[in-house]
């Protein structure tokens, strides 16, 4: 993710853009008109595309999220949509407060104008003289390496785009799909959705499948109800090395 430049001129991220739009169009942050905000948001994204700016994944992810909320609001009973909308309001207010805090803090920044000295060079034997219980080294190792179970960090940040924030349940669905596939090498497409208890679980499962397919870890074949999901063998090794 670090390699992608997400900094579109003037905006720190999708929340910054949303706040800008909310203020510019005098929308009520506590009661966001999603349809209108989505329209303004997409218009901005389109403008950026028109001048060939790289649109970072965060911005697209937010667009998807707004679309999701808008769609959910079309349902006759849309408690879930209300919840998502409130969540977005909360995030925007929080970020607004963060910006205000940053502004107030910046006004106090005098660090540039104070000079300190580096410590006097005294010839000293710097060898560490304290002793520690033998077990403390193991404790530290477990803290760092996560009970000895964490191996190398996830490869290539392949999933970072979907691990963040609201769609986080997608990551659990990725695991869910993979686990089922590890038990059997193939599985009926629809079977993956049978246990889902909510819309968002369905969506998350679907997004998980898309991500896995994109990462070439699974392959989906067949049509209609007969679609089958296959595990792709051996791919991880080549991707990872």
């Amino acid at each position: 993710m670090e390699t992608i430049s997400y900094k579109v001129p003037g905006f720190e991220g999708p929340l910054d853009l949303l706040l800008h739009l909310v203020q510019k169009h005098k929308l009520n942050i506590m009661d966001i008109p999603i349809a209108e905000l989505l329209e303004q948001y997409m218009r901005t994204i389109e403008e950026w595309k028109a001048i060939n700016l790289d649109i970072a994944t965060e911005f697209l992810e937010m667009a998807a999220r707004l679309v999701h909320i808008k769609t959910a609001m079309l349902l006759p009973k849309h408690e879930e949509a209300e919840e998502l909308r409130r969540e977005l309001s909360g995030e925007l207010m929080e970020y607004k407060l963060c910006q205000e805090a940053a502004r107030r803090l910046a006004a106090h920044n005098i660090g540039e104008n104070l000079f300190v000295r580096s410590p006097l060079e005294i010839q000293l034997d710097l060898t560490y003289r304290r002793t520690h219980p033998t077990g403390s080294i193991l404790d530290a190792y477990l803290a760092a390496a996560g009970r000895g179970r964490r191996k190398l960090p996830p490869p290539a940040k392949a999933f970072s785009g979907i691990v963040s924030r609201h769609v986080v349940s997608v990551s659990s669905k990725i695991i869910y799909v993979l686990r089922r596939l590890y038990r059997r090498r193939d599985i009926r497409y629809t079977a993956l959705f049978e246990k889902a208890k909510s819309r968002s679980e369905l969506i998350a499962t679907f997004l998980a499948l898309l991500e896995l397919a994109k990462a070439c870890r699974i392959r989906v074949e067949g049509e209609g109800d007969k679609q089958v999901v296959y595990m792709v063998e051996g791919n991880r090794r080549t991707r990872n090395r």
Partner: protein
Amino acid sequence: MEIKEYQAITEAILFASGEPVEISRLAEVLELDEDTVERLTDDLMNEINTRTGGIKLVRLDKSYQMCTRSEYADYVRRALDIRRNTPLTQAAMEVLAIVAYNQPVTRAFIDQVRGVDCAAVIQGLIAKSLIEEKGRLDLPGRPLLYGTTEDFLRCFGISSLSELPPLPQKDADSDMQETTLDEVIEDSMTQTKGEAPEGTPIMTGTE
């Protein structure tokens, strides 16, 4: 020993160390109790800071540090050929504010508030010694916690976190209404509690 002499030793130590020196360390060297050290160093600070000179003492949490007076910054820069640092970016200020007002915080928390990946900004602030690791959170994945440093206090002209500029509380015209940052954050914490912490290692669901 006379008070004046203890103060002279303290001055020598603060000058030689360069870095902030904890009251406890001064107490150990001077073989005095910490309260006494605090009192005599506060007096010394008062004396140094009221005379016309180029140096001042600052109090940073449980430490003291000697530094130049800000009004002479341009001369010092010129004499030592110090280039002005690039000022902190908006992104860096935002991350710093999140850390300052909510510490200790995880990277996932910072990412969530800003809605973007902040790993590089965090690294930059650590390199500038404005924030530092403060242990790990006792949660799956044991995420690292970050907090501000003594250098942060110095750079923002305060001697403890309680002196941070207050945040908007009841600003009539803002949409914040009566929410403080803490409340907002508390809310968002409870809201997201059910879900896996975002960010680094992908957690398995609890199926």
